């Protein structure tokens, strides 16, 4: 062993990985959980030790980042892989029955479930509405704050505040804001109509309420990114344009917009991914109601996972969503890069 270790240290370390996996699998199969947990832990630790021993004195940089990667693996990647594995088994987290292999059953079930398609349509509607509203408002705010004016810094801080609030606070705030008996919106409308105003009673009203709350919270984020683009435009370009007496419109399209475009794409990307996962505001404001008209796919995954405890089904659904977001993101990046090249 010693000689092997001296001659092939890296290979030994690598060979220890499948060995550790086999030992863990055997331990999980044949030993009670309380024992197999420690056996698997010990063989994993031994395997990790071999890598560390190899890298000692050879790859100091790698060793320094290793703890961070190990932590990431334990807290993030491993649970992710575990839940991915669960999506191929019959398993419910609140039952005693051990997992049984199910193959692609849950993927098939989820993809052919009309409820899922309905929730996806609701989500798509929300994404389109809220992201476009955020882009427009964020852009206009950025144009405003790109100029110097009195109290600009104070106003900027105020405008950025919603983004820093917790989701729960925003949800609770808007719940009262729209409340027909005490709420500000209802009180204001009542001055003119004499009747309390019940925004959240219809599907359209509830959607509007959610979109507005989400846009209120996240438009400042778009503004921040666009503002960074705006201040990076060199002044001399505007000076040259004014010498040439170029129109404001042309100045915007030929000078300002190209500088901002890539950041705008970035904002669009971030906000689309986030809006796709829209949960907090919906859950706090309407719980997906009236009926299920504002129940986004994220709320539905929550229900399947933590209310119905269909663990495998919710895992399969979550991976399909992850896949969708990855595809969307790549499409975005592809088109963004293509444009930049042309």
């Amino acid at each position, binding site marked *: 062993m010693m000689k092997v270790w001296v001659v092939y240290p890296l290979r030994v370390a690598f060979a220890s990985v499948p060995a550790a996996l086999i030992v863990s699998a055997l331990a999980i199969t044949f030993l009670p959980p309380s024992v197999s947990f420690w056996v698997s832990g010990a063989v994993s630790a031994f395997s990790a030790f071999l890598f560390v021993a190899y890298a000692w004195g050879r790859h100091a940089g790698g060793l320094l980042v290793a703890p961070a990667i190990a932590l990431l693996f334990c807290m993030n990647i491993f649970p992710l892989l575990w839940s991915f594995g669960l999506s191929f088994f019959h398993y419910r987290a*609140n*039952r*005693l029955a051990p997992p049984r292999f199910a193959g692609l059953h849950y993927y098939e079930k989820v993809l052919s479930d009309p409820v899922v398609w309905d929730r996806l349509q609701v989500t798509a509607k929300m994404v389109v509405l809220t992201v476009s509203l955020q882009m427009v408002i964020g852009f206009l705010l950025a144009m405003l704050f790109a100029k110097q004016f009195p109290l600009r810094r104070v106003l900027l801080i105020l405008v950025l505040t919603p983004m820093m609030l917790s989701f729960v606070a925003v949800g609770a705030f808007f719940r009262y804001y729209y409340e*027909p*008996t005490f709420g500000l919106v209802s009180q204001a409308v009542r001055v003119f109509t004499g009747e309390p105003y019940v925004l959240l*009673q219809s599907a359209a009203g509830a959607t509007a309420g959610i979109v507005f709350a989400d846009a209120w919270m996240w438009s400042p984020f778009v503004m921040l990114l666009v503002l960074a683009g705006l201040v990076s435009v060199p002044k001399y370009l505007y000076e040259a344009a004014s010498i040439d007496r170029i129109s404001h419109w042309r100045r915007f399209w030929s000078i300002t917009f190209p500088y901002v475009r890539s950041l705008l794409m970035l904002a669009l990307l971030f906000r689309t991914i986030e809006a796709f996962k829209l949960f907090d505001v919906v859950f706090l404001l309407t719980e997906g*109601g009236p*009926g299920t008209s504002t129940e986004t796919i994220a709320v539905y995954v929550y229900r399947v996972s933590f*209310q119905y*405890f269909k663990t495998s089904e919710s895992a399969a659904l979550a991976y399909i969503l992850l896949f969708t977001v990855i595809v969307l993101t790549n499409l975005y990046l592809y088109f963004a890069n293509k444009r930049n090249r042309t």
Partner: protein
Amino acid sequence: MKHGNTLRAAVCGSAAAAILSAGLFTAAPVLAEDIVLRMAVPDWPPTRIMKDLFDKGYKAKSGNNVTLEPDFIPWPDYYTRLSGSLTSGEKRYNMAVSDSQWLGAFIEGGYYQKLNDAIEADPELQTIMDGLNPALVDAYSTYPHKSKNYYGFPQMPDVLVAYYRSDIFCDAGEAAAFKAKYNADLPCTPEEMNNADWDMVQKFGEFFGRKKGENLSGAALDDDFYGIAYQAGKGYDFSTMQIASMIWQHGGDIWDETKAPTGKAEGVVNSPEAVKGFEHYLSLLQYMPPVVKTGTMDIFKQDELFREGKVAYMINWIGFAESSIDAKTSKVSDKVNFAMAAGLKKSDGSIDRTYNIGGQPFVLMTWNDENTNTEALEFVKWWLSPETQVAFAKAGGQSGLKSVYGDASYNTFRPWNHAFGASISNQQDIWHIPEFFELLVQQQEEFDKAITGQQDAKTALDAIAKFQEELLLEAGHIE
């Protein structure tokens, strides 16, 4: 060499210490153990009072030093937090205050302990079980429902009662106007209010709905005012509890788990009686504060509106009563009275008040060690002793012990107690099977569509019946 010496010294030292401490332990008398009862509880007055009573007066008979450590969790998150803790395997809690409908899910998961052996071995527990109202034992303890397997003891039994504004209902001017309009007497005392049926409640709704600037009890209103309120919220069970009651009163039924596997959902859940009951429920929503149209008027919103002085008559759980008569939390603290919740008047003149049961049992966890479990059962015995139950009732709680709530003095503890004892035997429960949450969520969604005016009662109940039939067939509860 130096190292060797140090090592030897250390080994000798630790050996000596070990011998000494072992000697000490064997020589000392049996020491009182520190035992902590960790309990998941919803955060509301009944559990806060329990903690308070425990800290003031609990002494374990065993001589152990027992402390109660409740985790106060807000109601809306309670199911998720408790189920998260149980399923994660962290084994954090020794006990929990569990909603009765969760029994199936958490017993099948292997978390809640079966108590039959403990009860059989302990005459004190048998006396307690015999002394409880049988409706409570069925709902809080048995799984399968109404079987002889016991899993829980009542922590706080709760019923739906009527809260009403005595300043308005006992106002002479309002009574005269009411008499002139309906040729009926406006109830004022609890005894009179106990006779109010749904037709009377509809009249309250119509009569007391007033606009800003109009008069109420002789004073001009500075805001709109509403006649009635009951639960109509989409979250959790915040419409089912009232709707199921209404359906039962009209002679309809929900899917009855005790009739499994032959009892069907289709044809029962959407029977003509059930549709009539639900239609009756929907017909009264027009008299409620406008938030009802959004489907978010849950029990908390109702409670808030009532304490803000916006509603004349409301049906809600007794659990909220304490805060409605507390001047710190209620604008109407000195103007509230209580009565039995309204029911449906039958052809023989009697009023059917079948209602959905509230309140929660204690459960013990399967992973408790022997000492903790013994102390947990001792704690239950203390809690369900007549002395503690009386102290709890005096502080604003309720008791399920017949000897306690049946005693004449019980009604003097709190202004709503007279309605509790009279209502408790009219209580039924919905389902306890593990699929409870799926049934509930879908039902709440369909109810919500009807409440917000997107569909009628028949369509909603048809959709619920169809969904339940399929789900229950798949789960093997219907053959």
